[in-house]
């Protein structure tokens, strides 16, 4: 960490010199990230118009957040893999393999083989820990073959795509494993798998405090090392925009009340008198969304503030130079695949919990969604370029498109065409703009 600080100041301190030109430079916001947010806003407004106001309803936005969570989680790892000039095609198969292990553990191995019974309080945590360990091991195996043996990542993970889906089939012989542990199900969201009003606001408060603290800390750090400071107005603007965005998101999540049928059942169970018009229980942030946000923040920290992240970007920028500079490139690459395996396992937990079942077909084709999300989010196949935040936004863009089109009833074949066009157009636009800037 200590040697990372000056580097950090260098990277973000640079652009300030040409800041007079534009507001963005003053705010030090990545122009591409801003462009993506603008594109997403246009998309949302257009869908809202086409769906007679349904798209921007709290319910749909809440749905969208949960539907995007699993892909967003995996995109955080895929960005680093692509940045270091590799690819991982096996994540959908790792997902189904881990999902079936977790499903079998909680419905058969723990309750029957060990005779401990269903729905134990500790089941979910044991299952998740084992699942993540399996994901990490698979990732480590892929990473070892790629980094130390030197087999191209495309081949290793293409093999993985076949192997782990096949292994998943052998595990359960194609059976659907359902229903799952009641606590484990909460990881998938749903009204009872959400934080509720008070906790959601508490999280929002913590996020805003954290944001302001990080702005102040960055100011202090820059002053200490003698780097140019961001203008006061820029810091204030960043703090305000960020806080409003966080509060707005939580407000939307809280504006989605529990579905009437569930609220009525809850009222009956807890002997709460139902007011006329039904009981209104704010849903709040869903647990999988919280997991995704936590992972995105953690991975951003790893990517920007830790040696590991810097190494990944320098290997992607120029592998030979990175090697000559004394970076342990092999170990770094292996670590990116371990991270990917862990994230695929987390996504497996979220997907299976949400479906309340582990089935043989889970995660088929998800690798392409994740790669598309990373690429739409500005990750470059030529290596060295890409941000976690961009990738997560890319995941939200992809999911907005597909669930928006289902909402307005677009034919399935047309949906595929639109998704394909958007993917190519987004990367095309980015390439053209980047060339012009350079």
């Amino acid at each position, binding site marked *: 960490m200590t040697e990372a600080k000056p580097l950090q100041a260098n990277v973000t301190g640079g652009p300030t010199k040409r800041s007079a030109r534009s507001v963005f430079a003053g705010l030090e916001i990545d122009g591409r990230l801003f462009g993506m947010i603008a594109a997403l806003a246009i998309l949302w407004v257009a869908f809202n118009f086409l769906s007679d106001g349904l798209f921007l309803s709290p319910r749909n936005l809440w749905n969208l957040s949960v539907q995007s969570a699993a892909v967003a989680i995996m995109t955080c790892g895929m960005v680093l893999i692509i940045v270091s000039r590799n690819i991982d095609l096996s994540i959908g198969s790792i997902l189904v393999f881990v999902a079936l292990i977790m499903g079998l553990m909680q419905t058969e191995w723990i309750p029957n083989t060990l005779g401990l019974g269903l729905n134990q309080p500790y089941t979910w945590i044991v299952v998740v820990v084992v699942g993540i360990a399996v994901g990490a091991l698979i990732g480590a195996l892929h990473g070892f073959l790629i980094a130390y043996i030197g087999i191209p990542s495309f081949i290793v993970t293409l093999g993985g795509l076949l192997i782990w889906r096949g292994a998943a089939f052998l595990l359960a012989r*194609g059976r*659907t494993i359902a229903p799952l542990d009641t606590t484990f199900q909460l990881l998938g969201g749903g009204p009872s798998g959400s934080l509720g009003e008070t906790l959601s606001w508490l999280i929002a408060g913590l996020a805003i405090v954290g944001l302001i603290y990080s702005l102040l800390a960055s100011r202090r750090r820059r002053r200490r090392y003698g780097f140019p400071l961001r203008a006061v107005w820029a810091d204030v603007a960043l703090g305000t925009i960020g806080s409003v965005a966080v509060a707005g998101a939580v407000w939307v999540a809280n504006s989605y009340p529990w579905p009437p049928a569930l609220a009525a059942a809850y009222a009956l169970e807890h002997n709460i008198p139902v007011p006329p018009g039904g009981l209104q229980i704010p849903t709040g942030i869903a647990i999988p969304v919280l997991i995704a946000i936590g992972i995105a923040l953690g991975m951003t920290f790893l990517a920007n503030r830790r040696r590991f992240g810097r190494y990944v970007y320098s290997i992607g920028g120029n592998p030979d130079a990175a090697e000559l500079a004394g970076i342990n490139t092999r170990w770094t690459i292996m670590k990116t695949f371990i991270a990917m395996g862990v994230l695929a396992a987390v996504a497996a937990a979220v997907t299976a919990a*949400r479906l309340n079942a582990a089935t043989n077909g889970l995660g088929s*084709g998800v690798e392409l969604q994740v790669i598309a999300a990373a690429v739409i989010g500005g990750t470059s196949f030529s290596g060295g370029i890409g941000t976690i935040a961009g990738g997560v936004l890319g995941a939200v863009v992809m999911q907005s498109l597909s669930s928006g089109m289902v909402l307005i009833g677009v034919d399935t074949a047309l949906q595929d065409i639109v998704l394909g066009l958007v993917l190519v157009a987004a990367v095309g636009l980015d390439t053209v703009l980047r060339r012009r800037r350079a």
Partner: protein
Amino acid sequence: MSIRKVAAILTIAALTFGACSSSATSAPGGASGGCKVGVAWATFQEERYGLRDEPAIRAALAAGGATYIGNSALNKADIQTANVESLIAAGIKVLVLNSTDPKAMLPSVKKAVDAGIAVIAYDRELESAKALFMTHDNVEVGRMIAEAVTKAQPTGNYAIILGDKTQTNPVFLRTGMAKVLDPLIASGAIKIVGEQNTPNWAADAAQTEMEQMLTAANNDIQAVLSENDNMATGAVAALKAQGLELKVKIGAQDGDKAALNRVALGTQVVSVWKNSADLGTAAGKAALELCKNPDISKVTGAKAVKTSGGLDGYGVNLNPVPITQDNLQVVLDAKWITVAELCKDVKPASVKGCP
């Protein structure tokens, strides 16, 4: 990395896999000089193929002294083409083709027929008069799903979750559903408020579709017709998130264990059950007959049928059985599912068949 390279790699991988599975499964047969039967599976994604169909075919062939060779194609026609070639090269006399695509597999059928191999189109149609189409009557399956659901919910808004748009089964099933639905739509009793194809028949995709249809209709949906049980798993999860799993009537097909459990629990009205083990046994027996006489019209039970494209061919149709809370005993008697699996979490003595 060019598409051609990817395709080449996939083909090589498929060939390797095909070769691996055939060498693994064909070992014991050689000595008796029995007939070799090759089975080209489309996929093992659904519960039934690996758990029911394949063991039944193997058993029937073993009982007749024939040898089984099999491979699977990840639902991809190009992989299956290579798989069929490797089966032909292995010297099979009968090809059981669980086709990935009714038309794309025709060159493979021709290659097999030219090599003097009799072809059975297993469970999925081939647009060819040369293949014996053995299946459960899927139009009838669709009709039974719609019949059971409309009986439970004669009026209101309906949503339909269709299978993968590249195959013909979703069309057969939908045609059968229309037989029941169309008069009710015409009389205004029911209304279709959403209808979506599901890539790869995937449960997680079906869940998202159901969520979006519920959002679009503001939960004003009273019944759901799903073209298989796997997708129904996703749809029921979406309904459960809205607390509607006992209110909205949903029907599907396949007799998946999880789905039969839902029927017992009351969260699914019907799972139309095609005893795939029976289909596997019938195909195994037909293959044994074809080993002796490759004329498909002479197979026991073969009737003249028309393909979707209007060709005159031969087929063997097995009858499906709709499983509802009234006849759970049927699947128990067939040893399709155990009482413990069927009645998991079911309130004691609330349903016939569950203790």
